[in-house]
């Protein structure tokens, strides 16, 4: 009797678990439930807009029911990793562009290569930046970020300095930055710096500068670290000069002391007259009422060093065929002109629909589009988070003066390469 009761209970538990596991698949009526994950802070305008777009989508596709799973960035990815481990990840989610290959290389994502062939790739930015070494595409662009040179028009006018042009070189940048650096209260410390050179967010700091000086970070399908070069040293020396003897940029300790996220407000609060910034930095500057312009990154000995991150929609490899189809429907819906226009109103990312981007960005913001066209990816690979962290630590040592540049570059290269080799050594070629 007891055994039978236990068996019945086990069957009941398994039935419930099975039902839960099957939740979201297409039922007999063809209806499908799609769990859609994305990151946004609670109450953030992006959250509101996303919910409105989901409503539009489900109204146009009544057979698809969407369950939103939203969390702030860090929490979202923390939870996502455990959801993946437990086989409970959403069927479609918004991934930070630099993480797409990390998830893909571990078999968590569906290959979208064939689906991408069904759209006109020329209509969208960033598809190529998502292609891996074998030509596969695991993410479809959602929004793009690329750094350009932000400058404060009022500070330029006050200092009677000519505004940046597309012909500017790093020497021009340094010359203007020196003139823009001012100590109004005479305490021996600048109140306004000409330029913000160092940032913990290296996309807006040492990465494009090293590339502009002719160095590189990773090559050979982003598997070979090559940062230890004379060109990289020249780039870091230029930055150290800016923060040290030339004194036109706040130093490492000052910038780090501002705390997470605050570094990005340096430009918005007028503490620096120029700064490299991705498109999302237009929001705080606009909110603060700064009259600013954007110009292409200055030219270094090897060009501008443009880089880009393309945040992308990805589809869970475990999604059923019906869910994967519904997910792709959502992706193509979001990439369409209407939703893209609505998303562009937030002003937090460059629309990936080229037609919408051209219309949404005023002519004086087209530096973003030119930069995006010329950009390479940010060295993305299966261990991007880990190898860039190893590298960033050593760059921090060099830029804070804690370690000689030569030593930091050599050690950083060695440690980053070890991370990459450890992963790819166990992978089929």
């Amino acid at each position: 009797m007891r055994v039978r009761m236990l068996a019945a209970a086990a069957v009941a538990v398994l039935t419930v678990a099975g039902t839960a596991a099957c939740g979201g698949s297409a039922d007999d009526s063809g209806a499908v439930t799609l769990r859609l994950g994305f990151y946004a802070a609670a109450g953030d305008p992006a959250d509101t807009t996303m919910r409105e777009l989901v409503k539009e989508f489900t109204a146009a596709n009544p057979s698809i029911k969407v369950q939103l799973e939203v969390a702030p960035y860090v929490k979202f990815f923390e939870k996502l990793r455990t959801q993946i481990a437990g086989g409970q990840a959403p069927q479609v989610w918004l991934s930070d562009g630099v993480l797409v290959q990390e998830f893909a290389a571990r078999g968590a994502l569906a290959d979208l290569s064939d689906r991408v062939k069904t759209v006109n790739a020329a209509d969208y930015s960033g598809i190529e930046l998502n292609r891996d070494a074998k030509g596969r595409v695991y993410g479809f662009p959602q929004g793009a970020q690329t750094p350009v040179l932000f400058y404060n028009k009022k500070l330029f006018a006050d200092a009677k300095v000519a505004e940046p042009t597309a012909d500017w070189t790093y020497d021009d940048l340094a010359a203007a930055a020196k003139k823009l650096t001012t100590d109004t209260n005479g305490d021996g410390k600048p109140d306004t710096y000409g330029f913000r050179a160092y940032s913990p967010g290296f996309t807006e700091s040492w990465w494009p500068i090293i590339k502009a000086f002719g160095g590189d970070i990773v090559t050979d399908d982003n598997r070979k670290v090559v940062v230890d070069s004379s060109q990289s040293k020249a780039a870091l020396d230029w930055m150290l000069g800016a923060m040290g003897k030339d004194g036109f940029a706040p130093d490492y300790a000052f910038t780090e002391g501002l705390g997470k996220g605050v570094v990005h407000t340096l430009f918005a609060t007028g503490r620096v007259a120029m700064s490299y910034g991705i498109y999302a930095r237009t929001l705080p500057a606009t909110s603060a009422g700064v009259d600013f312009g954007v110009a292409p990154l200055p030219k270094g000995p090897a060009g501008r060093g443009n880089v880009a991150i393309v945040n992308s929609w990805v589809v869970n490899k475990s999604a059923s065929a019906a869910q994967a189809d519904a997910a792709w429907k959502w992706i193509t819906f979001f990439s369409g002109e209407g939703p893209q226009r609505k998303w562009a109103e937030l002003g937090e990312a460059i629309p990936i629909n080229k037609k919408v981007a051209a219309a949404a960005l005023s002519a004086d913001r087209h530096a973003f589009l030119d930069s995006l066209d010329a950009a390479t990816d940010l060295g993305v690979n299966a261990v991007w988070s880990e190898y860039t962290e190893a590298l960033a630590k050593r760059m921090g040592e060099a830029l804070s003066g804690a370690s000689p540049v030569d030593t930091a570059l050599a050690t950083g290269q060695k440690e980053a390469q070890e991370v990459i080799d450890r992963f790819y050594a166990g992978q089929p070629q």
Partner: protein
Amino acid sequence: MTVLTGRAGKVAAERRPPARKRHAGERVWAVAFASPYLLHLVALAAWPLLASLFFSMTDYDLVSSPKFVGFDNFARMFNDGLFWRTLGNTAYFAVLFVPTQTVLALALAIALNQRLRGMALFRAAYFVPVVSSWVVVAYVADAVFNPQTGIANQVLDFFGLPAENWLQDPALVIPTLAAVAVWKGVGYMMVLFLAGLQAIPEERYEAAKIDGASAWNRFRYITLPGVSGTTFLVLVLTSIETLQSFEQVFVMTDGGPHGASELTVLHLYRQGFQFFQMGYASAIAWVLFVLVLALTMVQFRLQRRWVHYA
């Protein structure tokens, strides 16, 4: 009460089921009553512990099935410079934090172990940081240690001393973190010491006074032995807490500047939850567990020499 004797008793005894069977029903009930705790123990303690032991011997990226690799993760750890660096950081943090907090908590407890008006208010004031979250504490710490606007540098400036980059200086970051951790945690340990102090019989002090013992001697020969049990508890708790320290560095420095404050648990967290290396993270967790266990055992062994349970 009926007592069965003779043949009737023998027959009855023969008919009675064996003790094992007689108590079977009671055992079922006992297990049923204990089941919430047993379930909790198995599901939330024993099972995860065994699972992590298994994962520590696998290459597990959270997505694919774990691949058994024997002791490779442990071998990697012993060659991982970053692991040793984080262990060194943790040891340095512990060496600064544990004695400072213990001594300060005892000093505060003695100071506040007075029958004066408003003393409860002072005790509560020291306890407030204990119940504050690390996020709040981080904001308070920023108000003190911010290189540009913090009070600490204003004080240095007042005395004509150069400003410091407290949390941005690799040489100062751990001492600064230890100072903040003491500020946050000292109130709790102080309460434990207060309880210990109040358990010391007043007559001992009175007798010592009559015998002419100085204040120092009363502290040395009555107070210290009297709170030695509490001191032992505080040392064990604080040591374990230090070796498991995570939230503070996660919120305040994220391991920076360039890894100077990366403690072992933060390293473990990154390996497991950011870098998809749950096997390696589990191995680190087990090594840390063994270290905590060893340290606690040493403390328990040594306590026989100096702890007085009176």
